[in-house]
């Protein structure tokens, strides 16, 4: 087993969890930019951490944040230098392998989801999201899309709202009344 194994050579093959991607000796598109971004962000954080309590006592509230942000700055700087020296991966582009349009679209979907969640309510927002997402990903007919999206939404809603009693924004849906009806059904009234 090669400990540097990163899945198949050009695409993430579905191995999940904390298995990092990237290649040990090559630089992927955007990798250098990301490293520079992290370095600058670390610098900003370090400056901010310095502002907490300055270089006073070792036990000051700012000492650990300063130490960690300093370590971040040093390591991010090292990564940037190393990355800059590496050759580029030959057959990868930003738009194909790192950040395809589909992913940008989905990040957009999620932002819109967050914006709509409170005013419109969970059920309609989630329904809209699932329908659009499954339609885009599965590229099947409307019947299939609606059936799968609404079917799974009902299961999720029942499980989380009723079993886990998670509070979700009701928005425009008269949720409390609906739950009462459901409870009445269950208790046989």
């Amino acid at each position, binding site marked *: 087993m090669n400990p540097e194994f990163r899945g198949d050579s050009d695409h993430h093959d579905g191995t999940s969890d904390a298995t990092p991607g990237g290649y040990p000796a090559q630089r992927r598109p*955007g990798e250098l930019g990301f490293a520079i971004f992290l370095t600058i962000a670390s610098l900003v954080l370090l400056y901010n951490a310095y502002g907490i309590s300055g270089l006073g006592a070792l036990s000051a509230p700012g000492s650990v944040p300063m130490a960690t942000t300093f370590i971040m700055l040093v390591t991010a700087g090292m990564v940037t230098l190393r990355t800059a020296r590496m050759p580029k991966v030959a057959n990868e582009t930003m738009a194909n392998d790192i950040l395809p349009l589909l992913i940008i679209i989905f990040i957009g979907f999620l932002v819109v989801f967050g914006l709509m969640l409170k005013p419109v309510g969970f059920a309609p927002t989630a329904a809209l999201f699932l329908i659009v997402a499954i339609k885009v990903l*599965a590229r099947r007919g409307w019947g299939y899309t609606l059936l799968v999206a609404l079917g799974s939404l009902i299961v999720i809603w029942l499980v989380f709202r009723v079993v886990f009693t998670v509070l979700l924004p009701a928005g425009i849906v008269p949720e409390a009344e609906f739950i009462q009806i459901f409870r009445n059904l269950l208790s046989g009234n």
Partner: protein
Amino acid sequence: METLLAIFTIFTQPQLLLLVGIGTFAGIYIGAIPGLSVTMAVSILISFTFSWDVYPAISLMVGIYMGGVYGGSRTAILLNIPGAPSAIATAMDGYPMAKRGEAGQAIGVTTVMSFFGGFIGILVLALAAPFVSDFALTFQPRDYMLLAILGILLVGSLSSGSLVKGIFAGAFGIAIGSVGRDPLTFTERLTFDLQIMQGGISFIAVMIGMFGVSEALLQLQNVDKVAVRQKISKIVPSFATMRKHLPLSLQTSTIGVIIGALPGTGGDIAALMAYDHAKRVTKNPERPFGEGAMEGLVAPETANNAAVGGAFIPMMTLGIPGDAVTAIMIGALFIHGLNPGPMLMIDQPDMFWFIVGALMTANVFMLIFGLTGIRIFTKIVEMPRSIIIPLIFLLSIVGAYAVNNAISDVYWMLGFGVLGFFMRHYGYPLGPVILGVILSRLLDDNWRRAIISEREDLGRFFEGIITSPLSLTLFTAVILIFVSQTPLWSAAKIRLFGKAST
């Protein structure tokens, strides 16, 4: 006697038994379906079980953890796609066996061996943890601080990827954990004077973002991959096969427990090390490794399940997580008002014995579910990603929102999801971030306690480290990990691992 009662609490309450069962069952599938991970599931579940009592919540999580570590092996054998990182080594000999039409046998051996390894791990947990926690009472604040640093460094260096990126990730995690008002002096830290940052960043939002959203975003790139189906024959392995592999499985279980018990390192590393060990000690395998050697299944599967029990040792005795999943469980215990550490073992020994009992039960459930229901299994695993991915997003949003009923947590989650997405692409490990977030408070508090008790004198602080054998050992370990990053060491590492790679 009371101990026994606590272990068997689970059997006196059918509801808990049921939850462990459901958890294990769900865990097997979550572990098996590529793109769904145990870490993801447990972090989302924390917020859903928020309103529950602590026992049912822990029952469910323990079941998912145990089942999930095992479940990854199924897809590794059948599809050559490890469903979870702890099953990467399993695929190397499991898939060749499946190609020869021995998928059933491979699954059978894997299941029984996972059970065996899991059992050894739990046994060691039950026997060792009380001693460790007695010992832990003598720990000084500086020892806790060193242990926390050691844990973050270990996970950064032993998991794949460069140590520098691992250290960055760990430091980043600690920084995230220190955002908000300082608990001792109430000073604002890293808040940029923003209102929303004063309360700190919800660690659940960070976890769900890093492990749920970023994973789902990555999976969007292989939405169209289709699974290949395998024929499955006889499953329950013969007693002779089991007996033949008993010595090896004992050794690899031991490796699993030890790696699991080291702070930060879990089943994935244990499995790889055990596989390597099996290759070295097996003189005459029936088939060469990599072409369907039974030993190549026995070793990683015993080790990764043994690591589960091992990972609970530092978590229960020191409050320092053994791996990413136990890190999240510590978070869950915090939420339920418990503070894992030596005092928990003394004040509430029932809690510890309950977890031991729940692990045992989950292990038995795993054996039962593992040897049955293969046919449904192949159906469920073939569920298209075009449906799974939107559902993960939905659950992540619900999970992040549910803890504090705050939309801002949803945005934190999205932000960390996108960041985690890039970190995955560019080879930054995410495990250290979560460990850092969880350990931030412990590290900060203990550093300040230690340095205040030495009257702010660094010289006296180091003198304390050098004169205490425990602190000195921990300190040496931390230094060693740093040294391991020098070119000298990496040359040795290539000789060690390079030879083993196939």
